[in-house]
């Protein structure tokens, strides 16, 4: 704690997918004494994200295509089956699946189902 106090302002990183909400939070933090928003690449003291982790969890938000993929991934479909459902090639599906898994895994062991169930319907 002494190091934080010695450095002055607490540096806050905003990890929220919605740009409007992120902008509002940025404004509020900017008006508050003792707090400031982290510069790009700067190590933050605190991270601000949504409590349910649905989107705030991600360092980068999911693209619309990745949202489609995550539900099918949670259902346990193969890349070929995911490609078939979405009308894309199995190799393209595989690429999206890899991106989704890397994003999901940002916090270690994660659960595609938990994320997907917040975003939409999972067919089991």
């Amino acid at each position, binding site marked *: 704690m002494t190091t934080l106090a010695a450095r002055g302002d607490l540096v806050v990183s905003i990890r929220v997918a919605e740009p409007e909400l992120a902008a509002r939070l940025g404004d509020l933090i900017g008006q508050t004494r003792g707090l400031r928003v982290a510069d790009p690449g700067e190590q933050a003291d605190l991270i601000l994200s949504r409590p349910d982790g649905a989107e705030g969890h991600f360092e980068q938000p999911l693209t619309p295509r990745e949202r489609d993929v995550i539900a099918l*991934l*949670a*259902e*346990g*479909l*193969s*890349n*070929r*089956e995911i*490609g*078939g459902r979405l009308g894309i*090639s*199995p*190799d393209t599906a*595989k690429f999206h699946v890899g991106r989704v*898994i*890397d994003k*999901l*895994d940002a916090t270690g*062991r*994660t*659960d*595609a*189902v*938990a994320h*997907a*169930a*917040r975003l*939409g*319907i*999972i*067919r*089991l």
Partner: protein
Amino acid sequence: MTSSPSPLAALSSALADAVTAISPHVVEVQSHRSLASGFIWRDGLIVTPDETLAEEGGIAIELADGTVLDATLVGRDPATDVALLRATGGQMTPVVFGSDAVRPGGLTQIVAAAESAPLAAFGTIVAVGPAWQSMRGGTIDTRIELDLPLRRRAEGGLAVDGNGRAFGMAVRGPRGRTLVIPAATIDRVAGQIAEHGRVPVSYLGAGLRDVPLDDGGSGAMAMTIDRDGPAAAGGLRQGDIILSWQDERVAHVGALLRRLRATPVGTTVTLGVRRGGVPVELAITLGDRPAG
């Protein structure tokens, strides 16, 4: 004064000997635009990671003696990253799994193949944990993580303990981590693929999503019902909220799925459901998920 042999030289020789001993069980797997490794699981049957195997096109394997054989796909299970190939004609000696030395801090080697030559890696077993479920809901019997970087071509190689005994297949996990699919998982999944051509997947036949409950807590609401599916046959209706599975509370779809994946096809389960605010019990016999 005569110099005694360096202990490092002895260690080095022992490591190289272990690679030589295991490499006859390891093959290169060539599929469309992909080179990876695999190993001889049973006579004529080769296990390789699902992830590195191309989605279409021809497959060939190259044995340690340089023989190249055409291979056919028996089946693949993306949930556990196991694919099974069949090839005949060559001299194939199946690997014998068996290790009691899979502990954190233990040393391990990966023995893979580049064409007919061994491709080796050496490192530490970082962590050994309980069974876990993959992103696709497959059960991996033990979580084994290694600290060594695994090149793509070495995926599918055998993980070997300090006694030279194989304990699983090395694969790349998310974010480039090296994981081992343990022998128990491979034997179970490859066995199902060999028998059925695929791994049966327990199926309910309902589209679900998490919903908060009026009186606190949450459940899994049936948004859609597959008309020909097991849930419909058991009386589940659109709008029902599933609250329990075999008298155990399930608060969300994830919890329901974990129980579903752990229950074999053909089992009849009791679901506790809230329908229009009224508790209802349903008996549903799990089906096998239709293809596609």
